[in-house]
């Protein structure tokens, strides 16, 4: 149900935990810390993904605990390659039932999904992989800003943000800022208000991920997540203290800033 890489909608993920929304089928190419939290908090029934790790750090321990030990519940997984997921989102955004790529053949990935089939090129006879389009019920992305009409502007590493929005039945954007006019920015993508269902202003809403032009990635947090998430009790305490017990994203930011400051200055 969310975006990619840069501009990860952490604040929206926390709100899902607070509201105890459960039995979700979540989709993301690169589920990382926020998905680890959703999984550990028991919100996830199924995960569709292509790479599930803590980038540059190591494993997602809550994800592993769910897959390896069914804790706190068993989750179903469906995995793909990045290229396959990208083609699935593109097909979804294009209104096509499938996308085509030269991939999957010869790998064991093919055995564990119903959503990749081989087709023949009608001109050359070449066998290619067809992947089923993804059309999420809801996509949530974080973006830099929106104007008052709801047009949303995204720049920097744009990932599959556009495809996530355009493939979804309902698209929600959290943004750093709402402005009167979207000044042009190099490399920016603008999504018109009429393809966005709702915009919420959440400054630093991607933290510990970042929004280019607004914030820096908090690499220390990603490193600190490793020991927290390795232990079920430490994880549960962290979620309780910083997510469940906080009212909103601002309160969350205050809460973790206090907790992590000591450790961070010593790192």
């Amino acid at each position: 149900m969310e975006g990619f890489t840069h501009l990860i909608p952490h604040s929206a993920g926390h709100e899902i935990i607070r509201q105890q929304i459960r039995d979700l089928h979540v989709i993301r190419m690169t589920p990382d810390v926020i998905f680890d939290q959703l999984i550990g908090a028991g919100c996830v029934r199924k995960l569709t993904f292509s790479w599930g790790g803590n980038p540059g750090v190591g494993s997602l321990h809550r994800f592993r605990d769910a897959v390896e030990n069914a804790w706190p519940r068993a989750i179903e997984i469906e995995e793909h390659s990045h290229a396959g997921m990208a083609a699935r989102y593109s097909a979804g955004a294009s209104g096509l039932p499938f996308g085509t790529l030269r991939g999957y053949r010869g790998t064991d990935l093919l055995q564990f999904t119903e959503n990749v089939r081989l087709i023949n090129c009608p001109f050359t006879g070449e066998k290619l992989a067809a992947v089923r389009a993804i059309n999420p019920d809801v996509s949530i992305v974080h973006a830099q800003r929106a104007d008052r009409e709801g047009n949303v502007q995204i720049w920097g590493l744009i990932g599959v943000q556009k495809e996530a929005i355009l493939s979804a039945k309902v698209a929600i954007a959290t943004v750093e800022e709402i402005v009167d006019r979207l000044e042009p920015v190099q490399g920016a993508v603008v999504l018109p208000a009429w393809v966005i269902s709702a915009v919420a202003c959440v400054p630093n809403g991607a933290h510990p991920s970042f929004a280019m032009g607004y914030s820096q990635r908090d690499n220390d947090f990603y490193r600190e997540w490793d020991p927290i998430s390795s232990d079920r009790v430490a994880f549960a305490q962290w979620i309780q203290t910083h997510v469940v017990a906080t009212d909103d994203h601002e309160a969350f930011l205050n809460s973790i800033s206090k907790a992590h400051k000591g450790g961070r200055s010593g790192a």
Partner: protein
Amino acid sequence: MAPDGSPTADDVMIVNAARALGDLARVGRATCFVGIGLPSTAANLARNLYEPAPVLIYESGCIGSKPTRLPLSIGDGELGETADAVVSVPEIFAYWLQAGRIDVGFLGGAQLDRLGNINSTVIGSYAAPRTRLPGAGGAPEIAAAAGRVVVIMRQTRRAFVERCDFRTSLGFGDGPGDRESFGLTGGGTGLVITDLGILEPERGTCELVMTRLHPGVSREQCLDNTGWTLRFSDDLGRTAPATDEELAMLRRVRNGAAL
């Protein structure tokens, strides 16, 4: 760097990987699709050491990134800010990788087998894995489409196995002809650089054989750290010792000093 200032096995591995990229760039195969971690360190070392410098391409959509500090994540802002062009993720895979524009794919993994296949999905069975790994990411299509694949991995008996528990990315499948039968357009695993030396696929069998050892490494060490009956090339050579210049630059790259 070891406390006595001599290079560690990892240093030697990274320096040799950088040299391999430099050699490929020199013969005009300069575009390199890079993963985070050891590949990114080696690629950035090569970019700072050699002319022509390899062109680094990251799966987050960055083409021609020239980071001044090593990125922790593929989505690091530094990669975008220093790139010649930033494109979407669907585009980087379709228009750039799949189209055959990548000369060198630079991969790691948890397991590598005798035929150059790579596992980055699970150790054990898929249904009940002993270890759940991050998964495929961009690797399957990099392995499929890059002109040649350079693998950088520490050589151990657990990692270098007779057959991968899961084939995430194809080397030579079950042997000669398999890549062609699957319609893969790239050349497959061409070079494996480890902390002990270098392996290359043998002509005719595609089996990975040891072609060079790093300074001070013995054949026995290699045999002990390989899960299949490792063979050595008839003209087994040695890699040149890492130079002071290479090691100094590696230190700078690691420390994120202005590059």
